[in-house]
Each structure stands twice: as structure tokens, then as C-alpha cells.
């Protein structure tokens, strides 16, 4: 690993200034992904700006919003009484990810910024448009078992994007479903980004994972109050029972009045370059009885536009089954 300058500013502003000063500089919080990438030679920042001295770790209810500081640890959020009471879907998703040690280190902001686990991205002997723009994609014609089934076509031309990697986070799937907002602070001031706009589709610039501007620091995540707490489920399908990334995952949340669905939220992980919100399926659930038949119908609608590659066709079959299963469990029919 190349050596680097290390700095630990005391304020958000000083952290942002330190980042802007050096073009390759990166923030570091938990380090569980960045240090791994540095060891693999994928990231080589000349400066690391350690933000752990910033007071951004609070989890609190503010009016109609649950606010989670960007430096709150994944394990703190998962075990937080407030989160378990208000947003249990988020706790379930967090506990489905990584290992206990990693959740003790990784932060909420860092979880959002983790990079894909595509094996061609990690293998520096292989071409990868995300790691080295313009070098090609090992996955498109290669072993693409863990890759995307949605969002892999560029919006303008409809042709295949230059990357079919998926976003690896579980937490982000829950946050996408729960209408979260990301609070960021940057050289030009503060702004709020809807969670579903935070991550990007690959298009022809897959090296850019998010819509953060250079120097912007994630400060917190807001989740508006909702009536989902009693009927949520995060279902994660993976190659082993624990400590593995999702092949597909589903975050399902229902607001039930008796057996009628007042409102539904549905998002998937392991299927796209960003957490994949299924708004059409949500609309199809609204006002319907919470039955297996309703869920099957929603799953069919959800799968529209899915596209398989040579080795991941199983995901197109697995995803609707996972949606139905997650909704049944959320509704208490499991």
C-alpha cells in the first residue's frame, strides 16, 4: 500500500477543506471498505481525512423524523431502541449485512459509499470500466452470476451500459424503501438528497457511484415517520446463511388496515447498480387485500424490464419469489 498523509480535523468545515485541497483525498470513518480497497490497490488516496472526531453519531427523533448521524455505527443503529421501535426494517437490513465485528466498525455514511463487490472490479488484472474508465468490462461477456438485472441500459440510447455491477449494501435497500433523505454538507453549503437519487445508474460513467459532489460530506440520514413498523421484512437470499452479499434481497413494508393494504414500500438489493425501488409494484399493492394472490400480482409487475445475462438468469426467477415471500412475512402470512 502506498503511504499517505493523515489528518484528523475537528470540524466538518475543516474536513471538507482538507478534502478539497488534495484531488485524491478521501474521507475515512470505519475504513472497513476503504482499507480493503487500498490493500487491493484499487484506491490510492494521497491523503486520508479521518472524520471520526466529528460529532455526527447521534440517533434521535426530531419532530416527525428519525435522524441518524452519518458516523453512527451499523451495530449501534441495528441495536438502537428508537430504530427498533420506529424503523425495524432498517435494523433487520443492517443485521443481514457483514459480520458483527464489521458492523461495530462501519458507519452509516460509509455503508452508503461502499463500492461494488464485482469480482472484475476487485481483480486489477482484469478490465473494469468502474475501476479504470474505458478499459472494458470483464463481466458483460464473463461470469456475471452476481450481476444486475435492472438499470443496465443507458437511458438515451437503450444500449447496454459499460458496467453491470450491483450495489452491495443491505442498509441502503431499507433506506430506499423508507423514503429516507441524505443530508450533506459541502464546499457550496448544505443540501438534502432524496435517498433514491443518491446512488447512480452506471450509464457510461460507472466510475461515479453517487451524486455527491467533490468535497461533500454525508452528515445524517432522515427517515420520515410512517405506519410500517408492525409489518416489515427484510429477506436476503445468499450463497450461505450468514456473512455473504445478497444474490437478491427484498425490503418490504406494509401499512395494513385490517387485511387491506393502505400503503406499501418495496425495494430490492443485488439487482442493480443502486438500491432498486419498485414503485409500480407498490402502487399495485395499494388498496388491495393482503393475500398471496395480491403479492403474486405485484411481483409480476415488479419484474417488468428485468434483463438477464448469461449466468444470472436465475435472479429473474428468484426475485419474484423473494418479493412474494418478503411480503407474506411482512403481512404475517409467512
Amino acid at each position: 500500500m502506498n503511504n499517505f498523509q493523515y489528518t484528523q480535523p475537528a470540524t466538518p468545515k475543516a474536513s471538507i477543506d482538507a478534502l478539497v485541497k488534495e484531488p485524491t483525498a478521501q474521507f475515512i470513518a470505519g475504513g472497513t471498505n476503504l482499507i480493503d480497497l487500498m490493500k487491493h490497490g484499487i484506491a490510492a488516496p494521497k491523503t486520508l481525512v479521518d472524520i471520526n472526531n466529528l460529532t455526527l453519531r447521534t440517533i434521535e427523533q426530531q419532530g416527525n423524523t428519525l435522524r441518524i448521524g452519518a458516523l453512527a455505527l451499523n451495530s449501534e443503529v441495528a441495536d438502537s431502541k428508537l430504530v427498533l421501535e420506529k424503523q425495524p426494517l432498517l435494523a433487520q437490513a443492517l443485521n443481514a449485512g457483514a459480520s458483527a465485528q464489521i458492523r461495530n466498525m462501519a458507519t452509516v455514511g460509509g455503508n452508503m459509499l461502499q463500492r461494488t463487490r464485482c469480482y472484475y472490479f476487485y481483480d486489477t488484472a482484469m478490465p473494469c470500466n468502474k475501476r479504470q474508465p474505458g478499459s472494458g468490462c470483464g463481466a458483460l461477456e464473463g461470469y456475471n452470476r452476481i450481476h444486475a438485472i435492472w438499470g443496465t441500459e443507458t437511458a438515451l440510447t437503450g444500449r447496454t451500459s459499460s458496467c453491470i455491477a450491483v450495489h452491495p449494501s443491505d442498509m441502503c435497500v431499507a433506506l430506499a424503501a423508507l423514503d429516507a433523505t441524505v443530508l450533506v454538507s459541502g464546499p457550496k453549503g448544505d443540501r438534502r438528497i432524496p435517498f433514491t437519487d443518491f446512488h447512480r445508474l452506471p450509464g457510461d460513467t460507472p466510475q461515479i457511484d453517487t451524486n455527491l459532489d467533490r468535497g461533500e460530506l454525508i452528515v445524517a440520514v432522515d427517515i420520515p415517520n410512517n405506519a410500517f413498523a408492525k409489518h416489515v421484512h427484510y429477506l436476503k437470499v445468499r450463497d450461505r446463511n450468514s456473512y455473504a452479499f445478497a444474490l437478491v434481497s427484498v425490503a418490504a413494508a406494509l401499512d395494513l388496515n385490517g387485511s387491506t393494504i393502505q400503503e406499501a414500500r418495496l425495494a430490492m438489493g443485488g439487482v442493480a447498480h443502486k438500491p432498486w425501488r419498485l414503485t409500480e409494484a407498490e402502487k399495485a399493492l395499494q388498496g388491495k387485500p393482503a393475500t398471496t394472490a395480491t403479492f403474486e400480482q405485484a411481483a409480476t409487475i415488479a419484474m417488468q424490464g428485468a434483463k438477464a445475462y448469461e449466468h444470472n438468469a436465475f435472479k429473474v426467477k428468484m426475485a419474484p419469489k423473494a418479493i412474494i415471500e418478503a411480503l407474506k412475512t411482512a403481512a404475517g402470512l409467512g
Partner: protein
Amino acid sequence: MENRPPDSPIDNEEGHSQETRRDFLKHSSLLTAYALSPSSLVNAAEMNGLNPPQADTVSIHIDINGTSRTLHVEPRVTLLDLLREQLDLTGTKKGCDYGQCGACTVHINGIRALACLSFAVMQNGKKITTIEGLAKAEASGSAHLHPMQAAFIKHDGFQCGYCTPGQIMSAVGCIREGHANSDAEIKEYMSGNICRCGAYEGIVEAVKEVKQGGQKV
């Protein structure tokens, strides 16, 4: 261009360098000699202050197993390498070195974490406990072993032993975090520690016994 006298500066147009050709040759030949020298000569040169510039180091103060230490580390040194290579605390194992196996699990301020994915400079002011300090650092009923170490022996929670220090540090964390209430929960919350010998059943028994024994860990 006018001829320069032999010792005139090579380039001083913008004040970049006042170094003469003679200085340059002296320095470069010294470095060449240094590179070709046997290590005994290099050591002697270093003691005389002739060592080449070292990468930037940072001073940190950390408490390791109850001993306060001031250390100088390059920012890129991981906590794992600091423990093993500089402090000879080789109980903490390097398995994968990429956060996938759990063999390097230590406690940072009492919480289990992976030493391989932690930079030492980021531990300034923190309290680190490794397997070497576990029995000493905790209120232990046993004279020499932490209750979890004793339970691992009793229940055959290992075979080759390489993952064991990480397993034990993780097992203590699992109980402290309140996630050792059933076999299924223990397995889930211990899933970050891989054991290639397959001693998992014994490990679960050990964790369960310590948890049910109710001793403070």
C-alpha cells in the same frame, strides 16, 4: 551561453536549486554506495545519521493490554501489523488480511473489531485488548485464563488453533453485546469468525456455557 565555472549552480534561474554539480555527484555516489553496502555498514551509517529520509511517521498514544505506549507509525500501518510486527504480540493472527476471516479480532475500547481493517494511527487515545491481555484485563474467576479461554479448552472449541484467539475475542464481544441468547443467535453473531477445522459446535458450546454461567466477561 557563457561557460560556467566548474562549481557554479546548475540552475538558479528561478531559484529552484543552488546545488552544484560537485554536490550532486557527492550525494548521488553516497546513495549508490549506500545501496550496495552490506547491512552492517548500513546500520552503522544509520546510527551516524546518514540514513535516507524515512516516510512520514505519526506519534500515537495507545493503551495495549493495560500498558500505555507512545509509538511512531506510518499512517499505512494497520493495527494488526503494529501488534504483530512492532510489539511482538503475535497472538492476534493474520488470516486473510482483508476482513473476511475474523482471525485478527481484538477489542478496541472494549468492542470487538478487526485489526486488519484498522489503521494504527486511527487508534490514538484508545484502549486495545488482545488475546494476550484478555485474562489480565478482565475480572477473571480463573487464576490464569479468562472464562472463555477455559470454556474453549473444555469444549474442544478448536483443532489447529489458528482462528482461536479471534474466536475467543469475538465470543466475549458476542456476550457483551447481548447476542448469545440461543444457539442460532450465537451462530449468527459469530459468523464473522471462520474456522477451517470446523470446530463450530464446540465454539457454540463454549459461548453458551460462559453466557449461562453469568460471569462478567
